[in-house]
């Protein structure tokens, strides 16, 4: 029930931000559409289980700043190898083990790997993920496990 309330609140804020018209007719239409979407999610039975909104914490904010730094650095290396040509790339495929316990943690880790250019999560199964990297160095960085450690810290 709490999740349903949260969902309707988020949808209402999203509608208000996107609309910019606040006369009674529009607002009543908004209420109807929010109610309709909540009804559909109830019918699909995805709200109260299998729906884990994460807690917003200071750790999450610092993690995102670190992630932005990583994205910028890996962008520079990928752009360099695009302009220098195919001789500078060394594609590798490897299976890494993850240390996160929860599904949300694994999803954050896999998405962070894909979000940094130069490394892509190709498959995930249990505690193992398959990663394709453009450069051997970025794969070595991942094997060093700093990102893994930071995401695991986020879970607590």
């Amino acid at each position, binding site marked *: 029930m709490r999740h349903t309330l949260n969902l309707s609140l988020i949808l209402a804020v999203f509608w208000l*931000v*996107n609309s*910019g018209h606040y006369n009674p007719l529009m607002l009543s239409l908004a209420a109807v559409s929010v109610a309709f979407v909540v009804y559909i999610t109830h019918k699909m039975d995805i709200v109260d289980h299998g729906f884990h909104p994460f807690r917003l914490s200071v750790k999450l904010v610092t993690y995102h700043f670190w992630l932005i730094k990583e*994205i*910028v650095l890996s*962008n520079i290396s*990928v*752009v360099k190898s*695009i*302009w220098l*040509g*195919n*001789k500078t*790339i*060394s*594609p*590798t*495929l490897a299976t890494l083990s993850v240390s996160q316990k929860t599904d949300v943690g694994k999803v954050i880790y*896999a*998405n962070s790997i*894909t*979000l*940094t*250019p*130069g*490394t*892509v*999560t*190709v*498959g995930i199964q249990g505690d193992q993920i*398959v990663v*394709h990297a*453009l450069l*051997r160095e970025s794969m070595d960085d991942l094997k060093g496990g700093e990102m893994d450690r930071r995401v695991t810290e986020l879970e607590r």
Partner: protein
Amino acid sequence: MDIVIAVVSAIFLLLGGFLCVTGGVGILRFPDFYTRIHATGVTDTLGAGLILIGLMLQVPDVLVLVKLVIILLMTLFINPVATHALAQAALKSGLSPLLQSKNHKGG
């Protein structure tokens, strides 16, 4: 103050445009599918991000700023998922990646 914001916004827009063209060159230049994914990663993260931040610096009102933030967040959340789904489908269908052999280091 206005001129500083205008210059910073112009720099962001130009850098973003350059990164987008770089991604386009990369998707043409790289030898196989799995390496081309990394080229699109450049345009999807920093290319899109820099252009949208450059636009955010010259917004007329707050509502437009919020919409730009929504577009940026959507790009950053949606693209990794789509890329991952695509790579996984390719690997499952048996498209094997081109790999560098181990003794041929730095080649």
